[in-house]
């Protein structure tokens, strides 16, 4: 063969990959070493999603993932997500998406989500669409969850409880201004979460409702 794929100009290679689905791209890594390097997957550890940060900023979200870079560059382009960058020495992807884009993104990496050991999760939004996407992706058992029958607040608590079965660390930051529903006491929430797999819990909220009394703290220690 006089000419191989890798001697094609960059714009042609990019154009070819634009037409390919994710599985085909992964398979192309099996063809030749330069192609493998183009979509590098350095170690199994880096395949896992070890940390997710979700912020609610003007109806968009940011996400951090450990990942293999080239693959996600392609994915962002393919999904027409323009606002993304690589941070933390290129080990993390930060992207801005709306909830519909997030749902598409999660669907594309669903198996990766489910294989991943998620060590911590930071949630600073109670957007129900977004929480639904996470629930159906992180935990297949939660597929029957009906967000439209619950208020946003219940959403978050239910989500926390289901997450508590999956992860060892949870950090929630609540925006009190949007909360109108009566809640179980903070102590009850903490007890229910820590009786599951979750061993580390951080809750941030300014409301008096969340303040613990000395007696509560004593009870938690016990």
């Amino acid at each position, binding site marked *: *063969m*006089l*000419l*191989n*794929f890798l*001697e*094609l*100009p960059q*714009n*042609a290679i990019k*154009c*070819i*990959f*634009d*037409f*390919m*689905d*994710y*599985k*085909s791209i*992964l*398979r*192309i*890594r*099996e*063809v*030749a*070493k330069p192609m*493998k390097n183009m979509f590098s*997957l350095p170690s*199994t550890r880096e*395949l896992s999603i070890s940390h997710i940060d979700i912020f609610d900023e003007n109806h968009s979200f940011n996400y951090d993932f450990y990942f293999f870079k080239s693959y996600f560059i392609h994915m962002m*382009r*393919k999904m*027409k997500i323009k606002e993304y960058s690589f941070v933390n020495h290129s080990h993390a992807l930060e992207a801005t998406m709306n909830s519909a884009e997030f749902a598409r993104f999660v669907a594309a990496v669903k*198996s*990766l989500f489910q*294989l991943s050991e998620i060590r911590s999760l930071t949630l600073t939004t109670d957007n129900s669409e977004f929480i639904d996407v996470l629930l159906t992706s992180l935990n297949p058992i939660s597929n029957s969850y009906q967000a439209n029958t619950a208020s946003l607040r219940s959403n978050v608590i239910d989500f926390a409880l289901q997450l508590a079965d999956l992860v060892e660390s949870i950090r929630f930051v609540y925006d009190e201004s949007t909360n109108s529903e009566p809640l179980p006491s903070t102590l009850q929430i903490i007890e229910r979460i820590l009786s599951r797999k979750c061993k580390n819990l951080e809750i941030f909220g300014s409301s008096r409702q969340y303040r613990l009394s000395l007696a509560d703290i004593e009870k938690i220690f016990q």
Partner: protein
Amino acid sequence: MVLITLVSSDEQNFPVERELLKQSGTIETLIVNMNLDDEDTDAAAMPIPLPNVKGDVLEKVIQWMEHHKGDPVKEGDNEDNNAEIVVPQWDDDFFKPAMYGSKHLELTVAASYLDIKNLLTLSCKAISNTFKGKTGPQIREEWGVPNEFTPEEEEAIRKENEWSE
């Protein structure tokens, strides 16, 4: 009808209808720079050298441009529309004889060099179609790519890719 002569890297001359060459961004720029559109210029006496394109490849490019004469010329990257593109039957038949060989790749290189966006897009789409649903070894066999991997390396890649199955 104004004819402009293109000269391939192996010194073959190809007189081509001026209208056809609008599809090539590179040639269009050369035509403008060489003032070949001016009435006073004798275009026939000023051939355009294309040192990066061999005669047999240039012949195919011209054949493609003749078929696509009058098609709207694609501008910019226009990535947004790429996903929807279907290779028309004529183009599929056009690429087929060269498929799985360096000829098709040379045609793709020429399309890039000559900045013929529609040809480049269709050619790349045709290449990507050959990858669909194929394993690495199948693609290697079809495209005649030698296997550089040891069995252990192949197994390692398969393991890395397992999560997507």
